[in-house]
């Protein structure tokens, strides 16, 4: 068992990082919010999304860059996000911590119900 890892992610931070992971190069705030709402059923406000991304970037878990402006009249550049190695590591650590803690519980081994 690995030594106790004190740097685990909060619930919202996990959701945001997972959405960045899933969207890959297309990860920017708008589709990330939509994916979290659709898959996790959690409606994050725009402000919460930005604040979480700001914190994650400060912690060095994600990096960001601006794409080219959109190909429409008045189109603006989008700020995309990508998971960094430390971010992936902490995401894995958080996920494993959940898995380890749920060993021996009904969450890990669902009990077949009698007919």
């Amino acid at each position, binding site marked *: 068992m690995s030594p106790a890892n004190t740097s685990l992610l909060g619930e919202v931070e996990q959701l945001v990082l997972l959405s960045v992971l899933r969207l890959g190069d297309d990860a920017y705030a708008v589709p990330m919010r939509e994916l979290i709402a659709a898959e996790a059923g959690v409606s994050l406000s725009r*402000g*919460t999304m*930005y604040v979480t991304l*700001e914190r994650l970037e400060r912690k060095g878990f994600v990096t960001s860059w601006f794409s080219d402006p959109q190909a429409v009249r008045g189109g603006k550049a989008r700020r995309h996000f990508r998971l960094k190695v430390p971010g992936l590591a902490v995401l894995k650590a958080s996920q494993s911590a959940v898995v380890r803690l749920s060993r021996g519980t009904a969450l890990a081994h669902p009990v077949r119900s009698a007919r």
Partner: protein
Amino acid sequence: MRSLARAFSALALRCVPREWRDTVAGDLDDEALRSGRSGWWIGCQAIAAGMRLRPVVNGDVMWTDLRYAVRSLLQARWFAIGAVLTFALGIGVNVAVFSAVDRMMFRALPYDHPERLVVMREFGAQPVQAYGTLPATYVAEARRLDAVVDASMSGWNSLNFTLEPEPGDDAAFSLSQATFNTLSVLGVRPWSGRDFMEADARAENRVALISYEVWKSRFAGRQDILGLQLWNARKSTVIVGVLPPQFINATSFLNPKSDGLYLEFDLFAPTSPRERAVPPTVRLKPGVTIEVAQAQVEAMVSRLRQTEPALPPGRLPSAIRLTSLDELLFAKYNPYLWLVMSASALVFLVACANLSSLMMVRGRSRERQFAVHLALGASRGRLIRRALVEALCLAGAGGAVAVVVLALSGSALARVIPPVFSRYAAGLVDLRVVIALAGCAVAGAVVAAIGPGLRAGRVDIIATLQQQGGRTSSRRLGGRSLLLVEAVVCMLLVAGAAATARSLVGLLTVDLGYEPRALYGIGVFLPPLKDPAANFEQYMKVESVLRSVLGSSVASSSNALPMDGSRPEQLVEGLASGSRYRVGAGLLNTLGARVIAGRLIRPDEVAARARVGVLNKSAVSLIWPDLTPQQAVGRLLESKGEAPFEIVGVVADMRDGPRGSGHEALFVPLDATKFRFVSYVARTADGKKPSLVAVRRQIKAAGFEPRSVSIGDFAVTQSNSLRDDRFRAALFMTFGVIALALAVVGLFSVASFEVALRRREMGVRVALGATPMALSMLVVREAVRPVMLGAALGLLLAFWAGKFLQSFLTGVDARDPGTLIIVAGVLILTSSCAAWIPARRAARTDPATVLRAD
């Protein structure tokens, strides 16, 4: 709209920290394009995102404090509502009143160099009372004095003008007569068109200048107003110009109904040496003082009097004096305005005290919260800043509600304010007043709010958290002191309200001696005939025509009536006072005169011009002081040089207004040889005002060509005479109710706080056997104690201050002890009710819960 939305969104994006601005802008653009949202949506989303990002990105805690303050106030919504209402009422109502009073008391008159404008008046042997006119030659000569630029006359005569030669039922325009140089003397130029010219006066061209407000409201600002004709008595008057906005003719300050000025002829060319003119407005030359001008006027008068006939022996010459226009117009209203401003200031004081009390209570109730924050590492500065932000949020919300209150109070003020002030009252808000009042209120709230924060640094955190604070009595002293101040002020205002209300009720219920409701005066001016008998006959025929239109209640009189204050003829020769009124058949009946003894004059007696008469009660007391009215009936009233009158009845005195007293009067039948014109009165069955068009049509159908027909409403005249009293009563009652409401809010807050503070004590009392009623009475008694003390002090103060209010009351003593005691009782009772709710909360204290919490 789209460019406005784009501008809004660009501005809103400034709320977002610079590092995230492009990100947020790009994302919002993206979503807006996909879902068809507008720039307004982008702007709102940007603001929300910015408020979330700022504390994290910039460490900008002000946004955090703002959100915290808003959330905190929403949780304590009753406190917030009380504080916002206090702020709004204290500011909103007072801004309206102070703005109006400021314009009347402290602003210069709206003329060019108003300090150089004076009015020339003639004073008789009693120097206090000025005559209404002075010799016209004095006015003409005054214009040529070295000290004088020019002199003008205006406002002594008003005529009603209409748009058609034959007036209908639409409201007429009331224009005041003026000389050609009225505007130039005042230093004012027309808004459009031209001023009056001396050539107009010389040629006797009838021209008019209408007011800007009438041009906008009655003519919809039409561009072709110049050259439009107005009509009076079938004579046309051409509009040559529009007066500037908010123009008030100097001598028409007391006649707000003037819709403009008209010029008819040259008043500076007296047609006879005995002709008299109204007091002129004189413009002095720059640098000339009133004293220098007065000396020149006196020298002029001395010179002119050498050509005048000598005065009768024993009669003193009159004096011609100059008075500053500002002093003349407003000096007599200054005590009134000071009264209004004092009442308003008292309400403002109550509001500030209340606001401070609420903030103080709020702060003290959060001492435990402050202790927790301090224990978690917050600095005292941070606590103070949070309290400050909360106070400013309340001030902002209160200010927004104050704008609504201001709008409502401004329009309400315009409806009840006396006409002389009405042009100042509505619509204009003085920014200086807003800043001063809002500044005081905000300062009071801020000081009261940050006080607990300042104190927090000295608080024993452990002791506070263990609820073993210092002596509670010292903490309650501040709130109670404010309650005492509020109670004193409330006593003053409510006592004033009671006195003015009683005065108004007394005036409304005074016996006028006749019934003005549904009573109308009809003036018909026919072309005069040379033969007096024929002249009289045509008026009697018109009376028959009016009866056919309006019913049998129509009656006539040959001159003025007692209720309009006129004194047409001496009652009898040799009598010092009293007037004689010549009346047609049924006039006294139509007026609703109350018969005290005997009967009224019969129609056959009028037709036969019998030597009969009806006296009023005052006349009987004057003529036969030893007789009762009943004993006066049947007696003969002798008059030198004519046959005596048999007195057939005595009626009650008819007052010329609620404040007037009936003077001695004798009513005798109309006499065809002794009249100049006849006027009529009618009492309509349905109470409605007769139609001017219908009346005129019937008169013309009967073959008459009246020069003018007018209809006046007696009830409206009486009602208008009470407008000042109505305003004072409304003002004091409004201020009294607001002060009482504010005091109730303050008392409720202080009592609630004390109950919260003494929860443990209440629990101990209940554990020791105190009943809920005993606990409730304890809370009410202690909460009302400062109010009782304040009421006692306020009673003494109201007794002393009554002398300032007395001059505005009629038939009521401002210092009436009974009224003052009742007012004190109302205040204490209201306060007891306000303290009852927190008292009931104290009565429900569960000792087990409270003591276990320790």
